């Protein structure tokens, strides 16, 4: 047979490890998007444990760790697990999460017993099931010039890519709306079993190299990370694969640096990437939400200040406010101080004799806001039938969010009125 790696110099062991980790991660991450969108994230966890007895039986029957018997064993047990989980739920009314828990733990326990009984002392270590033996990949038996674990995960990765490309729209539709997919002739059940088969096979191919813990992580974590970063399925699938590779590289570096379990570190790296996304994702991240909250609170504060000055002006009040008085009137918080200084910097308010005044620019902005306030009041009176003394507070809360479009629509509905319910003019 032709060695695939012909023409290349034998890479150093680290490259083999990273390559293997990356292919495994990509193979898993590709399926992950579908698992999390179908709310079956934990099925990956379940299947990766449940296939153990299948592996042992395959190992014992075939007498080898050959990849084909292992795949067969995994597919059979994977499908059985899926079937049993569903059946327990549907016919014995065991809650769905409990039925999954029962089936996969029972399968795993069976696997552990079988290992002890039939494969004890042979090359079949349960510890490996957890942690894998990524460190030993470079020394593994070569098939076509590649370490065997790399080859098997490569095969699975290619299969996963092919299935996703060929059945793109079917998988997409059945993940989004299983019933619609079924009525259109793409049986959601068939898709479900197909996906579970792929997960089982991927799990097995990855076991030898990286162990179940990394498989479970890679099935869910990169896809969940990608889900925080994008709204499109295509981007999500590709992105999760990229994140998988990134986790492999980072995990390898960290594992070597601290001289510890590499697959464990890859898992931690994936978790770290997820944490970063939770914090910093542009749209769905925690920090961007907090920042948005802060910006909006500031805007509300600025608008309250402007509107207050506008109303004073409108009343022709001679009793002007100092900056301090104005800030106190809107709450006197740090936020109020920042808002006031922002308004000044933007040239919307100015100071004369240490009293605050609206500039022309500020007056225009305030007019918009007061318009929105009074339109809303008029709307509340007309359509919600609220009494006059009940409309100010609600309008005060809502005024900041009534954009021009809504203002126009309200004005159109109110037709004639240029006055608010209190008889004050609604500014243009």
């Amino acid at each position: 047979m032709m060695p695939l790696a012909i023409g290349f110099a034998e890479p150093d062991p680290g490259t083999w490890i990273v390559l293997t980790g990356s292919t495994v991660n990509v193979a898993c991450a590709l399926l992950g998007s579908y698992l999390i969108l179908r709310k079956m994230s934990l099925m990956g966890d379940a299947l990766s444990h449940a296939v153990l007895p299948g592996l042992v039986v395959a190992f014992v029957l075939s007498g080898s760790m050959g990849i084909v018997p292992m795949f067969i064993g995994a597919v059979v047990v994977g499908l059985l697990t899926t079937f049993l989980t569903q059946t327990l739920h549907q016919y014995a009314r065991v809650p769905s999460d409990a039925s999954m828990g029962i089936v996969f733990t029972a399968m795993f326990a069976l696997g552990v017993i079988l290992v002890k009984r039939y494969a004890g002392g042979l090359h079949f270590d349960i510890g490996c099931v957890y942690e894998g033996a990524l460190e030993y990949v470079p020394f593994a038996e070569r098939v076509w010039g590649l370490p065997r674990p790399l080859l098997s995960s490569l095969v699975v990765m290619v299969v996963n890519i092919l299935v996703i490309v060929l059945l793109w729209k079917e998988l997409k539709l059945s993940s989004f709306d299983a019933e619609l997919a079924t009525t259109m002739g793409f049986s959601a059940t068939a898709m479900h079993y197909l996906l579970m088969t792929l997960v089982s096979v991927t799990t097995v191919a990855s076991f030898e190299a990286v162990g179940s813990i990394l498989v479970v992580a890679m099935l869910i974590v990169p896809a969940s990370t990608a889900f925080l970063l994008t709204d499109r399925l295509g981007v999500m699938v590709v992105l999760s694969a990229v994140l998988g590779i990134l986790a492999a590289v980072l995990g390898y570096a960290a594992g070597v640096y601290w001289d510890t379990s590499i697959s464990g570190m890859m898992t931690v790296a994936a978790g770290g990437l997820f944490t970063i996304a939770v914090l910093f994702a542009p749209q769905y991240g925690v920090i961007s939400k907090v920042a948005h909250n802060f910006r909006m609170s500031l805007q509300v504060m600025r608008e309250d200040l402007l509107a207050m000055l506008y109303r004073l002006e409108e009343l022709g009040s001679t009793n002007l406010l100092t900056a301090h008085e104005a800030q106190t009137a809107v709450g006197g918080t740090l936020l109020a101080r920042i808002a006031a200084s922002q308004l000044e910097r933007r040239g919307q308010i100015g100071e004369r004799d240490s009293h605050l005044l609206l500039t022309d620019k500020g007056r225009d902005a305030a007019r918009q806001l007061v318009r929105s306030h009074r339109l809303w009041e008029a709307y509340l009176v007309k359509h919600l039938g609220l009494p006059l003394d009940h409309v100010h507070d609600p309008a005060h809360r809502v005024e900041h969010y009534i954009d021009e479009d809504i203002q126009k629509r309200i004005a159109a509905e109110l037709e004639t009125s240029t006055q608010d319910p209190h008889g004050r003019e609604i500014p243009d």
Partner: protein
Amino acid sequence: MEKIAFEVHDMTVAYQRRPVLWDIDLSIPEGKLVGIVGPNGAGKTTLIKAALGLVTLASGKVEIYGKSYEEQRHLIGYVPQRESVDWDFPVTVRDVVLMGTYGRLGWFRRPGKAEREIADRCLQQVGMAGYAKRQIRQLSGGQQQRVFLARALAEDAQLYFLDEPFAGVDAATEAAIVELLHALRSSGKTVLVVHHDLQTVSDYFDYVILLNMRLVACGPVETTFTTENLQKTYGGRLTILDEAAEAIRRQKPLP
């Protein structure tokens, strides 16, 4: 002057910032049977949940006999929607009804003979005395609803909130519930019922709350349940309210 049993002041309720009930202001006198009527998504259940303190208010307040909900909890009975619980839960009919007495019992005390007697009496009142030992799964929809009613009766309240008690029940149960409501009224209780069937409003209730994101009308059935008010309630949503709600959801900072 008649006492006010239930009062809502300028209440706005929002789910994830998006307002679903706008500026509700209403009061219900004691001893009335009140139907809460409005299209789907009008906020009927939300009104009840807000009254019970199950959702937080964006603004406004709720008063039960002039005091806050926390102080008057013992005066309140609640019948949630039937779908809100797992009917496969391992409890019998009587166990469920006994739960109505838990609030009164307080911490650590177990329901005893007295409570069991209350439970049995309440079951009898809803015509389910023969089913006390059944698991709740083995009941029909109408019977499950009656069990929930019995549980609320066991709370021995002054003010009852019923969320869609007539949904998916048989004619016999509907009749039984109505009879029970009348009995409650004649003993001076106030009952608010989320109701869907416009045909029966005038027969069942003497007060009505018409709701569609905002309060359309609230008052005695004869004067309030008019074609004009119904048109306002069911004549489509106020799109401006919807748009404003959406704008607020997008922009408003979380509290």
